[in-house]
């Protein structure tokens, strides 16, 4: 496929400006069984996260006498892409993403309060459209809070990057593939500490600096939506209602 013109007259493929975030909808407590859960609908992404724990650490020999073991599993359903049906099960990409998401939560989840146990975060991407890992992380953070797992800070995520020479926020459909750079990031709310940072493509140092600033700004907006979702769960106390 020929590379589309990604920015024309200051507008992106879907009409957004460089700093505009795609429509983002977050709901917490949408599953009955999971101790904590969240749904993130971000542009064309639909991601569900569910949390269990602290509970028994299995296998026993991996349990830590001083803190809880954090387990994160990120997977993409075989029907999540508008293209081909893919094989189910973990692949190299999903294993790497599981690892970086887990590491993003290690500094904030207060694992030392629950020694010898494990806290499990399961993230399932049901529909994918650019920026699935940041949608997944954003969902996981809400699910952990929904489960009552104490965290020193709240984590929000967003992907920034560069399209046709222009620095942009929230890379969407086709933008992460055809753009010049893709920089997914996760940032804590009160400390503005970067807990996930990856990039591909080519950027000057100045462009990267701009990206970092844009991500901090963007994550601030994501945080407000995460917080609103958690507050809304108490509006009528109804849990386990899912609408995709």
């Amino acid at each position: 496929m020929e590379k589309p013109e990604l920015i024309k007259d200051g507008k992106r493929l879907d009409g957004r400006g460089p700093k505009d975030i795609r429509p983002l909808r977050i709901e917490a407590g949408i599953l009955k069984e999971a101790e904590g859960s969240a749904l993130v609908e971000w542009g064309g992404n639909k991601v569900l996260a569910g949390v269990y724990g602290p509970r028994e650490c299995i296998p026993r020999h991996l349990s830590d006498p001083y803190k809880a073991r954090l387990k994160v599993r990120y997977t993409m359903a075989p029907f999540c892409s508008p293209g081909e049906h893919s094989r189910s099960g973990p692949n190299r990409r999903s294993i790497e993403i599981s690892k970086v998401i887990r590491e993003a939560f290690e500094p904030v989840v207060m694992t030392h309060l629950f020694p010898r146990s494990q806290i499990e975060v399961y993230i399932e991407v049901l529909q994918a459209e650019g920026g699935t890992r940041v949608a997944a992380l954003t969902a996981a953070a809400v699910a952990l809070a929904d489960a009552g797992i104490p965290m020193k800070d709240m984590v929000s995520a967003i992907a920034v990057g560069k399209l046709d020479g222009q620095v942009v926020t929230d890379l969407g459909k086709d933008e992460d593939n055809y753009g010049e750079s893709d920089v997914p990031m996760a940032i804590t709310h009160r400390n503005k500490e970067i807990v996930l940072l990856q990039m591909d493509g080519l950027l000057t140092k100045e462009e990267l600096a701009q990206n970092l600033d844009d991500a901090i700004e963007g994550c601030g907006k994501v945080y407000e939506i995460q917080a609103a979702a958690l507050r809304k769960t108490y509006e009528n106390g109804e849990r386990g209602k899912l609408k995709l």
Partner: protein
Amino acid sequence: MGEETKTKILREVRKDFLQELLNKGKRFDERGANDWRPVEVQKGAISSAEGSALAEIGGTKVVAAVKFGIMSPFPDRPNDGVFMTGAEFVPFASPGFETGPPGENAIEFARVIDRGIRSSEIIDVSKFFIEEGKVMALFLDLWVLDYCGNLMDTGSLAACAALLDAKVPKIEDGEIVRGEYTGGLDMKYKPLTTSFIKVGNHFLMDPSRDEEYAKDMTLTVGSVEGKVASIQKSGNAGLGRDKVLELVDIAFEKSDELSKYL
């Protein structure tokens, strides 16, 4: 301790209590022996799939997604398209679900629902022939998101709704043109199932998770247009011949009720 052992213990804890209630003619919730819990179906829940639905029965939630692809046919059926059903018990759906490849329960779940659809012959796979060595494949995926009892009927409902929602993509020069469609699947029937559990001497339809802890046996009956399309008995106990026929009659009626949500 393992979830399986815990389940065995909770099973005993709930079983004698549930039997006491059943002897008085009550269930844990306020239903009769043959009442459905609240049902909801959301068609088109997943836009990346060519057909999809989220079905919920009493809290149990299953997403079914239909995707089309191109494959070489099975050697013994060179002119027929391929229809494959996969399933996943997503680990967050229940504290007892583990990560890893589908276990025996997930496989049974997929295969029983698959059989109900296949034996009704509602998908004409001969229509999927493209050219020699190339046929269209229909992938049906059943993703369990929340397990509150009676996965089988919820899964069938989701599968049926997704198939009804599905649009068949256009084929050009032996390739799929994504985003362009030739029409629906033209399903003749709506294959649905009704499941019963046996607790002591009582038979209960649409068991909740708590009730399933107490079960001795499950019978799932798939039906279309007053005919039996599939049967699966699982669990350790047995049941009599007359009972099977009695449950089949109830299943015809109950699946009919369920079809109104499609």
